[in-house]
Each structure stands twice: as C-alpha cells, then as structure tokens.
C-alpha cells in the first residue's frame, strides 16, 4: 500500500543534542510538509517542500531545518532541542500545492527532550 512512513516512531534526545527525524513516502507526491503538534493542540505547520522548493513558515524557529534529497525522502533537523520542542512531529504529503489536494499524514514521531 502506498503510504507515508516516519522513523523513528519515538525519539528521546538530550537538551541541546541535535536530532534528525525522517519521513519517506511511496505516494510519489510532489509536496511534503512538516508539522509540530503538542498535546491537545492543533498541528502547526513548520515548513513544506514543493518539489525542491523549500517554504518556511514565518514563525518557525531557526532551530528547525529541513532537507529533501529526493522526491521520496524528507528530513527534519532540530539543531539544539529545547524542552519546549518536545512534541509529536507529523509528516504529510499531497499531490500538488493549491487547489484542494488532500494532505496525507504519516504516523508521527514522538520527540522527548530530557
């Protein structure tokens, strides 16, 4: 089945220790998104890639970076995690940007910062 895969499902890191989260997709979608979701809150868009074009949200901290080496993979790098970065990180994909293309989400990575 075509899907969005996130690894690892659970990640524990120490305060200030860089961490990378991974997302891959077999849907062959052009757009990949990263969201942050804290407990009982709405998912918050961090950035997205439209093909190789990177689009950062204005309020995304510089501590968060992303890479998309090819169509299938996208990475979220947190350079110096703080306690406030503990959250569920969700990857999503869509066929294209604009219109009403549905975003399909992966299972998420739960990040704990000690």
């Amino acid at each position, binding site marked *: 089945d075509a899907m*969005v895969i*996130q690894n690892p499902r659970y990640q524990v890191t120490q305060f200030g220790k860089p961490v990378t989260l991974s997302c891959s997709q077999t849907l062959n979608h052009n757009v990949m998104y990263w969201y942050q979701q804290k407990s*009982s*809150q*709405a*998912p918050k*868009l961090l950035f997205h890639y*439209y093909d190789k074009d990177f689009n950062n949200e204005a309020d995304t901290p510089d501590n968060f970076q992303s890479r998309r080496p090819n169509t299938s993979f996208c990475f979220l790098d947190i350079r110096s995690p703080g306690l406030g970065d503990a959250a*569920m990180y*969700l*990857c*999503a994909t*869509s066929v294209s*940007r*604009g*219109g*009403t*293309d*549905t*975003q*399909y*989400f*992966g*299972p*998420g990575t*739960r990040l704990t910062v000690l």
Partner: protein
Amino acid sequence: EDQVTQSPEALRLQEGESSSLNCSYTVSGLRGLFWYRQDPGKGPEFLFTLYSAGEEKEKERLKATLTKKESFLHITAPKPEDSATYLCAVQAVPDSWGKLQFGAGTQVVVTP
C-alpha cells in the same frame, strides 16, 4: 485573521448515543474544509473534504455537512471504535497555496 474553532473540546458518549461535533470558521473565502480522525499517538487520518455550503458526505457512521460559517460532523449510533480526536481544517481562498488551518480538535470517547 483566519480562525477555526471546534466545539466541544471533549465529548463522552454511550455506545449508540448519536451526537454532533461543530467546526466554525472565519475566512475571507473557503476553498475547502477537511475532516480528519486522529487516534492517540498516531497521525491524522483523512475522512472528508467539503467544498461548498449545502454539501454533505457520509462514511459508515459519520456524516459531514457544511454551511457558510460552520461544518458539523454527525456520529450516528457510535461504537467504542469511533473513539478518537476529530480535527477540522480549512483552506482559505486568498492563500496562494493550499495551506491548512487546523482547529484544536474534539476528543470523543464512546463507552460500551
């Protein structure tokens, strides 16, 4: 400013007790309204897209409706497996691309 508000925040139902969830939105123009289901510790699962007032969509015990200011998700004769958080999200017309504005969700618990 675009806003999406979901109510109630939490809903506890007995199995078989039908109810409705509300998603009210304030946008300059609506391109689409999306409903997702999210189980604890998992990513959102797509349910429906609604485009225009008066539109309705159904899937098993779920029925979504749309007016000019709000959407309702009706759960008919719910079962324990319908327990989840239901998220509503809108795409607004002025946006140059299909950015989703999410509500905080309604957490539904269905007890046997």
